[in-house]
């Protein structure tokens, strides 16, 4: 099957019809498998997951989208006006009607520049296609207004303000802009589009967002029980009833001076859009790996050529590139990268296996009657068999002749088909054998060979390498940003703890003192990662009144690395917080300015803290009133 991605057209008509039918049967059988085991389907798509990883992705991805479009607001040779004006307005490359004629799809049939639409409902019908309003009007005032509104929505999405709404509007506007003309597209733009589409369905505003903070602030100050807020707590009452009840309850409780009895937790979110993102990323890598079927990827010269292309390199370093090729670094990397891409879906299998093992141990993995298990295994093997038959035929047509020479032509299809059929059976057998006889090997396979730590960390390094050596737009950045959806909540928490920790000196915190310089150098990175101690902490003093405690609680909700210590201090005036910084007790704007270093959400204010008024702004923001 994979070989079909290669360029040459081969006459496959003898097997085409059967391949199509079997492909369809295969797809149908996969769905039948899930019909027999609906609990697995539900576990796969409809479980609720921690919102933090995808919220972090929202910020990183949003920043990349913003930079992608912000970059176009500047002129580039040979233009004396912005690239955006050149690409998306009638003062640039395309006059409106030419763009409409070439890329308007159905619009060109139902729209007349003088007489408008043929029917009132045509605009609605056009939404099912590649409609953009810019094909109706694209003067700079209109196009650029749309453009700036889009940028505003992306910024709002990054901050997580009205996240769901602005994500949808951002998607519509980003699409409207992209659809005007495809002449400038890069791979990074395609990644932006497909992930922003999935972003519309993702509740990625449930953490690290203004929305989530406002919700939790209300809960904390009003003292409404978190359980009562949840739909399950209220039963099937619906949103309106909940809104009314909570509103009255909140006012009543506030009037009584009641507050929450715990920090309001974040809400978990549906997993299915995140799973689709994971599927999309796997497809991107697998497809691009398979499409790299040319001779340069096989003989390892691909990276040498790519890094020497005038259009891409950051700086012309042909000497270094030739040296890296000569020393076999580039050839090996090229071959490895290609196979890493082709096999990337392994990490998805790894994620599923690890979830299975984890939940099996906890007794949470969905159970099923024996007959359902056996039937579903049969159906799975039948589906696999259908795909194996097609892949066997593809092998017969597309594998190189020298590879096929040792198999009789009449037997090739059957041999390849059965060989592929045996793969899952062997894998499952090996898996159970390892679990029984070599659990440590299985653990290694699950966590390293199939684990995120290998696939994602290598991918991260790969994209950093691409970005350092070549300028291919924001492709590397956007790909790295979407990796975040693969993480779990505790992994994100570990990340923050790591970021705000300090490395231990040799001999400190269990870190061994390496006598030899060579050993010290070799262990530098592992030791840097492994031996950490908590970073400096900041003390927040508050008085004992509930109001002050609540204010301090609100600050705690922003403390991602757990770096704040809270101390009750009767000397602190009511409704005031005092921050201890370098032994000094700070209040007001000074306290807020010092917290810009501690609370990641206010890091952006840090470089500006000396500017008059910024401290006051930080204080306003942090007072959270």
């Amino acid at each position, binding site marked *: 099957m994979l070989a079909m991605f290669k360029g040459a057209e081969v006459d496959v008509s003898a097997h085409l019809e059967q391949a199509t039918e079997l492909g369809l049967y295969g797809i149908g059988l996969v769905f039948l498998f899930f019909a027999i085991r609906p609990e697995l389907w539900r576990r796969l798509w409809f479980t609720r997951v921690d919102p933090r990883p995808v919220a972090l992705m929202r910020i990183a991805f949003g920043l990349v989208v913003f930079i992608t479009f912000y970059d176009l607001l500047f002129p580039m040779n040979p233009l004396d006006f912005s690239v955006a004006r050149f690409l998306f307005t009638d003062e640039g490359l395309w006059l409106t009607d030419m763009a409409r004629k070439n890329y308007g799809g159905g619009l060109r049939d139902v729209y007349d520049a003088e007489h408008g639409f043929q029917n009132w409902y045509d605009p609605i019908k056009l939404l099912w296609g590649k409609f953009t309003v810019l094909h109706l009007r694209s003067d700079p005032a209109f196009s650029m207004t749309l453009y700036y509104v889009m940028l505003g929505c992306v910024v709002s999405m990054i901050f997580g303000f009205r996240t769901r709404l602005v994500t949808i509007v951002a998607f519509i506007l980003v699409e409207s802009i992209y659809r005007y003309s495809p002449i400038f597209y890069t791979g990074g733009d395609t990644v932006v589009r497909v992930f922003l589409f999935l972003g519309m369905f993702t509740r990625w505003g449930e953490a690290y967002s203004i929305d989530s903070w406002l919700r939790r602030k209300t809960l904390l100050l009003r003292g409404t029980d978190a359980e009562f807020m949840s739909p399950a707590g209220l039963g099937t009452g619906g949103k309106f009833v909940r809104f009314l009840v909570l509103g009255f309850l909140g006012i009543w409780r506030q009037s009584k001076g009641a507050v929450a009895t715990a920090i309001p937790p974040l809400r978990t979110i549906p997993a299915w859009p995140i799973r689709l993102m994971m599927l999309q990323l796997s497809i991107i890598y697998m497809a691009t790996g398979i499409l790299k079927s040319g001779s340069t990827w096989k003989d390892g010269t691909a990276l040498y050529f790519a890094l020497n292309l*005038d259009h891409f390199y950051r700086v012309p370093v*042909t000497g270094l590139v030739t040296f890296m090729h000569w020393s076999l670094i580039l050839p090996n990397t090229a071959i490895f990268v290609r196979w890493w891409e082709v096999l990337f879906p392994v990490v998805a299998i790894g994620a599923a296996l690890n979830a299975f093992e984890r939940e099996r141990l906890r007794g949470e993995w969905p159970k099923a009657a024996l007959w359902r298990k056996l039937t579903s295994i049969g159906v799975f093997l039948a589906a696999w068999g259908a795909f194996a038959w097609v892949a066997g035929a593809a092998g017969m047509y597309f594998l190189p002749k020298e590879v096929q020479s040792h198999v009789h032509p009449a037997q090739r299809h059957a041999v390849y088909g059965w060989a592929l059929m045996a793969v899952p059976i062997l894998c499952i057998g090996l898996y159970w054998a390892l679990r029984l006889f070599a659990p440590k090997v299985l653990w290694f396979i699950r966590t390293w060979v199939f684990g995120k730590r290998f696939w994602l960390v290598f991918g991260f390094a790969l994209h950093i390498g691409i970005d350092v050596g070549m300028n291919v737009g924001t492709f590397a950045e956007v790909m790295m940003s979407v990796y975040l959806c693969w993480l779990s909540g505790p992994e994100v928490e570990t990340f923050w703890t790591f970021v705000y920790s300090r490395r231990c000196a040799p001999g400190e915190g269990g870190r061994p003192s390496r006598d030899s310089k060579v050993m010290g150098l070799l262990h530098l990175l592992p030791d840097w990662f492994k031996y950490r101690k908590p970073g400096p902490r900041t003390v927040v003093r508050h008085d004992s009144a509930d109001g002050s405690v609540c204010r301090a609680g609100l600050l705690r909700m922003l403390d991602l690395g757990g770096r704040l210590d809270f101390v009750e201090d009767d000397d602190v005036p009511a409704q005031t917080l005092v921050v201890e910084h370098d032994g000094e007790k700070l209040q007001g704007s000074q306290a807020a300015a010092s917290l810009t270093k501690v609370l990641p959400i206010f890091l952006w204010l840090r470089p500006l803290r000396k500017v008059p008024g910024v401290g006051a702004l930080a204080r306003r923001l942090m007072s959270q009133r």
Partner: protein
Amino acid sequence: MSEHTPTKPAPQGLAHDLLHAPVPEPERSQPWAYRTWAMALVSLFVAYHATILMVHNLPNKGLSKGLHKWFNDTHEPEFLGKPRKLSFDMRTYMLATGNTQSWAMFAPNPHRSNTFMKVMVKDKDGDIWDMAHDIYGRRRYPYLFYDRMGKINRRIIEQKGYRRHYAAWVCREWERTHDGVPAIEIQFVKMWTRVPPPEKAIADAGGNPFKMGYDPMELKLFQREEDGIRCRTTRHGQLPNYLRERYGLPLLEKEDKVFRPVVHRSWWDKKETAERAKKAGGLVGKRLRPGAKTGGAK
């Protein structure tokens, strides 16, 4: 910041609950994302999107060509004794949702030559001007901000269909920047250099790592004249009056004679043609009717 140990005893009550108890993990008030009926609905979408995504990313040739066709075609399965129309409309779905995708980056091979398109203008006096649209020898290093115009320059080499449109823009741009005076012709010249194969680059250095590498500007530059596109006859190769007005340029007296618009038959044109044909048909019908008056000369 200071290393600090709280001096007071551990607080109780609200201060303990809010400031010292562990921050609760995200609440999972219910195990599943939705109620059953909602899960069924979302399942349909998830199954559709996932299937379409995978089929769309299979090659549209070879053994998977049939799958592409099947997911694009309209089928007529029988349901309750009647044939019903059913289509998965893959292509339109991917277009409508912005999911059309191709991941052929540096595939099947990265280019082994650097290609550039020189864009030149022949003005009204017959002088030739290099518009410096290509990056050959012009790029500044380090190359930090992505150059979309460089990408477009490569696009017009790879996809010839874009050249006419690009030339039309260059014509308009020339008019804009030359007080409304049009150019005569846009000439495209393809230029390329070949990246020396690694074996040659290594052999040239005699295996000495410190002598490896080459100067990209020392590579032999090949040039070939490609299209010559005339501004006067190219559609949208002239500034229409609404743009001249915006730019403060003199308006065309006979715009319809100078400006070459897009030719496209909209629904209105088709309707008018149909009505004319109907009228003409009626006239012909009258003529043919026995006893009817002919429109001929008396």
